[in-house]
């Protein structure tokens, strides 16, 4: 079951500081509720993808088909 993540304004400020993101005063309150919603869902997905049966699953990435000639230049 989802465990609702309550993100405080202080937490938003800390995360912004850790990312060197100069967040204007007052924006913490705007970000906190939506960040809480999204992290709650992301943590739920973390729990699913951490199950042993998915241990061999590789992440999807940008599949590149490089121009070999260009790469060798």
């Amino acid at each position: 079951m989802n465990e609702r993540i309550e993100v405080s304004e202080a937490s938003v400020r800390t995360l912004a500081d850790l990312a060197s993101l100069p967040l204007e005063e007052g924006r913490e309150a705007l970000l906190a509720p939506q960040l809480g919603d999204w992290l709650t869902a992301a943590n739920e997905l973390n729990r699913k993808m951490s199950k042993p049966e998915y241990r061999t699953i590789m992440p999807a990435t940008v599949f590149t088909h490089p121009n070999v000639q260009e790469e060798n230049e």
Partner: protein
Amino acid sequence: MTTTGTNENLARLSLAEAARLIEEKQVSPVDLVEASLERIAAVDERLNSYITVYEDGARQVAKACETMIVAGHKLGPLHGIPVGLKDNIGLEGLRTTAGSKVLADWVPEEDATVAARLKGAGAIVIGKTNMHEFAWGGTSANPHYGFVRNPWNTDRFPAGSSGGSGAAVAARLCFGALGTDTGGSIRLPSAINGIVGIRPTIGRVSNHGVVPLAWSMDTVGPMARTVEDCAIMFGAIAGHDPKDAGSAAVPVADYTADLGRGVEGIRIGIVPGYFFDHLQPPVHDAVRGALGVLEKLGASVVDVEIGHIHGNISAQLTVESCEPSTYHQRWLRERPEDYGDDVRLLLEIGEMHLATHYIQAQRYRSLLRREFMEAFKDVDVFICPTLPFTATRVGEMSVMIENGVEEDMLAAIMQFTGVPSLTGLPSLAVPCGYDDEGLPVGMQIIGRPFDEATLFRVGAAFQGTSEYHVQAPAL
């Protein structure tokens, strides 16, 4: 060269009809461009679907196209056809804003590959269409270039992010347009504006020269009034591009070849417990009705379990949050005030996910794709609604789908479009009905990788029995 019909009537021709009439020298590209410009002048003040209109340039190219066709020289299947480009697609020497203040004065030094290919096929770029800022959102409520409005009811939104392309095509302000699609940005405005649009297989169409949103899910695709029109445009832009490292070297088909084959024997999958749950009733009824039509034409509809489908919205929001925030990292620090409120907030939030959230979301994509690929052993396509509701009022950031519950617009709008985005599968949006207020409903046909031809085949079979694609909004 003799042109028959008024400009109003010319603007209402389908792309395929217009192309045929040009080839037969019954219609001049000059008159098609004038017809489109006249429509833009008459109605776009109410729609705001274009950021820039190239009146002089389009007229010059049209004259050249006319001279060529009279001389018996046809550039390609789009010779002389006026089209719009979403304003995140670069054009050499012409301003390309991505709907932003940040890139308000950006002038690319070369055409995006898709723009060059359209021009090479003879298309005339008549203007750049309005969009959600940097394509990061689904409403096309653009704070810098004005909110785009829905031609079926200008109090309603056109969806997005390719909302300008959707509104312009539906309102007959061009014969087709290009959009870009990351989480649904071609298919959503196609459905909401009652037109056809395709999200191609990832890698099928070049992204070179297009302002990115989320690299691992971005695609360019055509939006047009009919499946045939969409297939013609798609054929002009599809194919490998050595300038795009994500481009796939897979042969391109003639996408119009199978349009008349029908759907006898086609197996259509639906996912019980997901595709027809949590919908506004008119959407449910219209898409179920379309399935019934296809069954009568000889297709079969089967239930398919996709056990991992739940969780896709979170994965989308995580990927579509982290990747744009990476691209915008420098601008967000140097000029945050130049972003609109909603996009700025999303970009800031994208800086606050953990790497493990992002990577688990990317692992989930592999899991979901594997399950769909297994399912394609038993079905040829899946069909579901494009989105669970019809057009909401302009400016609304929440939506009521059922039981009087207000839901966040961004998560709600991605309910069905996210599956192809995450899995890289192609998906065609086709109009299939209206709600009680006359607002369009769209269905989504999802197919195997690089099998866009089957999607066009199914969509064309449906349009052969319906008239949703020939209805035009009364503007």
